[in-house]
């Protein structure tokens, strides 16, 4: 973190969120859809862009580390690898496919007026609150399922310099990207108004991850603040219960930044701490950035007359997302766009769970959506 000034943190993170929301809306950069489409349609068109984003972020982080700009490396809140990250990833995969978007996809869809995404967010908050109830035994399980306490990242585990390992991954990946460029696979032709090529959005998001790491001492995350919002709501109804909750009162972050001397402290509880100052403006920024994009294109819509089956499905998906992000100590944004670029073992386990979860989620989704459609015949 470059500063302990909370106002500056709010403002800077809000701008990062605004940019992310705007670009994600324009490209419909849906991470849930990227994974789902491999299983549902045997199509990896959009997943290619996420791969690009992860590799570019990997290069950015490594260059910044080599330049001495990342004094917190690996970044805070990343624990040792535990099998519960695998289980969390699995449930998260099911959840994001059923909710029709991940924890951030839901936000930019809310900005564009999608009512189902608002319901998914309600589910996410409920799932986060539910996790607090199971935290005591889940955290014990997580400790017992730790694979090694000696390494947070793959380079640490292998005793290699991150540069060597990242070079071994990024050089072939860049050659593959050039091959795709020759086959003209980066360009998507879309007639959607104001469409931004997803490749550009991938690069912007990689830049946002780097700025977040430099600014906050960690990459983008949002879900601890979902837990905080859930705790704030629950606190109105049952203040004593929240005050005595092991999860809501546990301090997950408590360090002094070596460069600025700023105190980074926070929890999943209902407090306006550093985690809130970093994450809440990103959440608000994504919703507003997408809203501005939708208003500019005159595409803001609010439709509530939708199949009840879909309401139930996104609510269940959201619930799983909220639960799973806490069970895996982070969401897909945190693990894929932050942890994976530094080869965090926890994030690799999350990804290994996410893939079968998305497969299962896709088959549930296909079954749930097959008994509809709302079609009508009309004469010309």
């Amino acid at each position, binding site marked *: 973190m470059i500063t302990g000034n909370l106002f500056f943190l709010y403002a800077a993170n809000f701008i990062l969120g605004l940019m992310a929301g705007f670009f994600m809306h324009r490209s419909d950069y849906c991470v849930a859809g990227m994974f789902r489409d491999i299983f549902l349609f045997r199509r990896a068109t959009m997943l290619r862009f996420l791969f690009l984003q992860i590799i570019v972020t990997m290069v950015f982080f490594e260059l910044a580390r080599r330049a001495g700009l990342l004094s917190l490396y690996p970044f805070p809140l990343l624990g040792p690898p535990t099998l519960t990250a695998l289980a969390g990833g699995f449930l998260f995969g099911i959840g994001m496919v059923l909710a029709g*978007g991940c924890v951030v996809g839901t936000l930019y869809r809310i900005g564009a007026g999608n009512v*189902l995404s608002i319901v998914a967010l309600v589910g996410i908050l409920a799932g986060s609150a539910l996790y607090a109830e199971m935290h005591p035994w889940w955290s014990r399980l997580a400790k017992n399922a730790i694979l090694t306490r000696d390494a947070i990242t793959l380079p640490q585990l292998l005793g290699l310099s991150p540069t060597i390992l990242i070079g071994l991954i990024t050089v072939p990946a860049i050659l593959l990207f050039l091959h795709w460029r020759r086959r003209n696979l980066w360009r998507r032709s*879309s007639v959607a108004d104001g469409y931004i090529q997803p490749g550009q959005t991938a690069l912007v998001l990689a830049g946002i991850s780097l700025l977040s790491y430099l600014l906050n001492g960690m990459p983008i995350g949002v879900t601890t603040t979902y837990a905080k919002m859930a705790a704030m709501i629950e606190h109105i109804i049952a203040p004593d219960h929240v005050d005595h909750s092991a999860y809501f009162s546990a301090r997950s972050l408590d360090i002094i930044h070596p460069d600025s001397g700023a105190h980074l402290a926070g929890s999943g509880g209902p407090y306006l701490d550093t985690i809130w100052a970093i994450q809440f403006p990103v959440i608000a920024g994504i919703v507003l950035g997408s809203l501005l994009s939708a208003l500019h294109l005159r595409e803001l819509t609010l*439709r509530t*007359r*939708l199949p009840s089956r879909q309401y139930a499905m996104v609510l269940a998906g959201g619930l799983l997302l909220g639960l799973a992000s806490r069970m895996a100590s982070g969401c897909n944004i945190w693990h894929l766009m932050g942890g994976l670029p530094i080869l965090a073992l926890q994030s690799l386990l999350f990804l290994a769970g996410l893939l079968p979860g998305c497969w299962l989620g896709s088959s549930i989704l296909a079954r749930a*959506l097959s008994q*509809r459609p709302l079609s009508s*015949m*009309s004469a010309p």
Partner: protein
Amino acid sequence: MSEKQQHIIAIDMRGQVCPACLLVAMDSMNKNRNALQNGSARLCITTDNREAITTIPSTARNMGYSTRVMKKASFYEICIGIISPEGVEP
């Protein structure tokens, strides 16, 4: 049969969860294959899903249909069948 005489199979998918729009479009293209292929009907889907505007026309073209996408107010209309890309006079 001219485009003006075609029956319109209209489906409103606005606001629905992803990827219901594409799944329903594929389902409807299969169910109405004969009418769409002999030109007696065209399929018109209204959607506010920006991704569907890209994926539905490309899927339909792969199935041998021509497509037309038009922006109408806050949403898009995707028409599929034997149609001219520019559209007909109202």
